[in-house]
């Protein structure tokens, strides 16, 4: 606290001092100001409004900014002046271009909107296909070590057949799966047998068998892993996947 008192005057001195001293101009600023002065004069000259006297040679100005005075008569740089004019022209042209581009963009947006509408229609169609597939492609189940189509699954297979007839471009993969009881290799063969049984049944319903592929996963992709019949019966299955 004792020395805190000294801080107040010190702060005042520092603030005032920094306000009083303007930072010196940089070389860049000086150069820019000089060129601007020249450009102004040159433009006036070209417009026929040339002046005999240096507008900056006011006593005070000349004293404070000597480069402005000199700029008036020995800063003539035609190339720079032309460049400034060219720059302005370029800016104008750029603006025009931007406007044109904006117009073009509007047109493109319009076209895109139309395309989007079209693809939305397609997506809706695809959505309907997906939805129909979801509704129709029901998993079927098998008895232990058997590959016979069960009575209860015939409705599901009829649904799949109807779906395939409604969407003639549709293709399916039939997956055969098994429960964990049995050897890995024998179950791969059994899964193949189950997929083939489903394929044969769909063929009898009048669907071209070339539209199906079959794959066996044996017991390698179980839905559940508990060792009880409730789980095993879920795993002994045939699944239908869109291709």
């Amino acid at each position, binding site marked *: 606290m004792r020395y805190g008192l000294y801080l107040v005057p010190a702060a005042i001195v520092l603030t005032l001092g920094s306000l009083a001293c303007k930072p010196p101009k940089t070389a860049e600023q000086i150069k820019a100001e000089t060129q601007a002065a020249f450009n102004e004069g040159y433009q006036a000259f070209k417009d026929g409004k040339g002046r005999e006297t240096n507008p900056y040679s006011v006593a005070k100005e000349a004293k404070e900014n000597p480069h402005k005075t000199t700029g008036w008569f020995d800063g003539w740089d035609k190339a720079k002046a032309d460049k400034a004019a060219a720059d302005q022209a370029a800016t104008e042209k750029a603006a025009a271009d931007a406007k044109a581009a904006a117009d073009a963009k509007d047109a493109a947006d319009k076209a895109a909107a139309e395309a989007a509408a079209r693809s939305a229609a397609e997506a809706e169609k695809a959505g309907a296909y997906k939805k129909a597939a979801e509704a129709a492609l029901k998993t079927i189940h098998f008895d232990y070590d058997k590959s016979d189509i069960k009575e209860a699954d015939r409705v599901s297979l009829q649904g799949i057949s109807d779906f395939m007839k409604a969407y003639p471009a549709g293709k399916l993969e039939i997956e055969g799966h098994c429960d964990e*009881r*049995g*050897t890995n290799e024998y179950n*791969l*063969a059994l899964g193949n*047998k189950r997929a083939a049984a489903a394929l*044969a049944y769909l063929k009898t319903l009048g669907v071209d068998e070339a539209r199906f592929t079959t794959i066996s*996963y044996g017991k*390698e992709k179980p839905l559940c892993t508990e060792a009880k019949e409730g789980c095993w019966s879920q795993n002994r299955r045939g699944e239908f996947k869109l291709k």
Partner: protein
Amino acid sequence: MLRFLIRSFLCVLAATGLCAQQTEVVLSATSSAKLVLAMTSPKLSGVEAAAVGTEFTAVLKRDLDETGVIAMLQERLPADESPVKAWKEAGAQWLLNTRLSRAANGDLKLEATALDTAAEKGVFTRTYNANKIVPLRHLAHYLADDLVGRLTGEKGVASSRIVFVRQVSPGVKEIFQVDRDGAGLMQLTRHGSLTLSPTLASDGRLAYVTYKGGAPEIWGQRRKDGPHEKIYPTSGAGGMLSSPSWSPDGKRLAFVQGDRRGNSDVMVLDLAAGRARRLTDGTGINTEPSWNPNGTQLAFTSDREGGPQVFLMQDDGSNLRKLTSEGTYNASPTWSPNGAMVAYVSRFEGKFDLFIYKLGEGKAYQITTGVSTSESPAWSPDERRLVFTSNRFGSSQLFTTDLSGRQIVRLTELAACQSPRWLRGR
């Protein structure tokens, strides 16, 4: 503070108790025909005693104990410097002395001598020089193998490896290998897909089935240490492919191809010619081919008579005969390395047990019994043990058993393992 210390001590105690409970697998090891071997502590120079204890002595003891022909003397051991007579009185028939020394450049030297305690003369002397990158436990394996070789005339299998399939994540399985003692786990494939049914040629070439292309394909190595490449189908779709099996000479690959009518057939692919030939007749399921050691016959599983049973046939498909008759589900035949036995699994009350069919006697012997399932047998190269999978601790894990089924040892604690194969060399 004291209370905290006591509590943490109790926690540690409980944790070690749990571990011990989980790792305790050895059931029993009783056989009068085994040679009783005692081992003095290794003499060391320039090698850390602690590392030798865990990485050499313990490994060697376990290796020798699992050979099936040597029993380690465990109790009432005389002091290291006792006379040979004392070891004989303790029950040891052979006394093993070892000396481990490390040279200045880091290389290891192991000198091992075995004494017959009755005759008091040397029966085994061997020196091993190992580069410094060779782990101590490998030295123990080599010594164990040579001791068994000295005793039986056939090298042991402590330095062999076991290749198997392990689930990495649901729907993704890859092929791994471990050393015979369960150490040194290594991943052999990285397909990011279902990869199944490894088979190893005698020169170590691997073949397997992978689903990475959507449909199953047979991949493997066409030459020793070569890259893994697609072997079958060479073009187009191959249907259901499974169960590849190298012929003993490594020139042919038996495998199973399933068609769209639900049949699976045993095929044999000639690697050099690139032609595959069908051996079975195309009705029902024929799978799991296994070659006899001279490559003239195959054992396989077929459901041609209803349920799966084990059959034998010539390598051209002729001379078909049924091997198993008892039980409704017999599968996974694997011919023993010397050709006299076929191991297989048989289902009883919803779980499998291992059986061995002795071809000379025309009789089958049951190896495992119990409430848990035992599947996928594969022979050790010396025909003394079988590696198999079992769910006796929950998930499917790897175990080995002697042929009596009395000494069952858990190989690793890895979960979700299947289809082990056992091969000499690493």
